[in-house]
């Protein structure tokens, strides 16, 4: 019985960790310089 309880607890903790990892926000590096420019006129000829 104790073994079963420990196994269930381990599965539960693993599940919680998996959910946290899955939903965790991310890092990532935003662009350091520059920006978006609309394509127009000479770009489309």
């Amino acid at each position, binding site marked *: 019985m104790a073994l079963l309880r420990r196994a269930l607890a381990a599965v539960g903790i693993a599940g919680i960790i998996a*959910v946290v990892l*899955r*939903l965790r*926000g*991310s*890092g*990532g*590096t*935003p*662009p*350091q*310089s*520059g*920006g*978006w*420019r*609309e*394509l*127009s006129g000479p*770009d*489309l*000829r």
Partner: protein
Amino acid sequence: MRALVCGAGAVGARAARYLVADAGTEQVLVHDTDRKRQAAVVASLGDRATGLDQPDPTTADVVVLASPAARHAAVARAAVRAGRHVVSVADSVGAVEDLLDLHAEAHERGVVVAVGAGFGPGLSCVLACHAAAELDTVEEIHIAHHGTGGPACARQHHSALRGVGLDWRDHAWRRRPPGSGRELCFFPDPIGGFDCYRAALPDALLLVPSFPGVSRVTARLAATRRDRFTAGLPMLRPPHVEGRIGGLRVEVRGRRGRSYDTVVLGAVDRPAVAAGTVAALTARWVADGRADATGAAGLATLVEPLPFLHELARAGVRAAVFEGN
């Protein structure tokens, strides 16, 4: 040109409106399983629009499929057999595979089946082609999508987040777990940075045949924590009302001279409006005999990117380039 538009939802209504406004269109036939919606759209389009009880492809020169993607293959098959061109805005992997299977028959009959001719895929393929033209060789293409069009598109977005992702890597298809491969992608303003994940997206299926030497093609979908947490459940709330903004980011890497270079293009628009415009312009393009090939293919194979983007810009759908590091 006589055009049959199947589906009078957010995308189909925009496509029909664009086609009615085109001087070269003789008549626009509209079919929708929702008769009230069909009648409302036909009434709003004026004298050149007519409602149809059945989607009979023999009534038109080109058939625009803007109904939910699961219905596209059957109508497209009938249209190809009748020798009519087809433009589909299908955005699910299954529907795109079914439509691409029509290639041999369509090619034999000399007709075009434009597959995934919407915002994403669609405009994303045209942008990839345009970016590739700036490089000598293309090695990688990475697409990111943000936002949804109408309710059918929102349902597809929800379903894609639990579907297996399909990547092209080292000249072979790889199946990837849904929700993996998190990447922070920066879309054109005002969207900005969003976490994007692998999902069941058809972009790679459409792009790989157009770029024979490419070694990697991936597609990702922007998703919030709630989107990902609820992806495995039925949609808990009705899809939001159409009209929110969406974006595309297309990154193409390859060689220019001796250096390794990256070209990043993007677009921001209401996805349903942009998808309707792309579909209608593709229909016009195909009916005028301007498609670069016959058979079933994506827009990267079928259209010349520069004149296509120029005409899209005139219709209000504008692309952008990222300049910087």
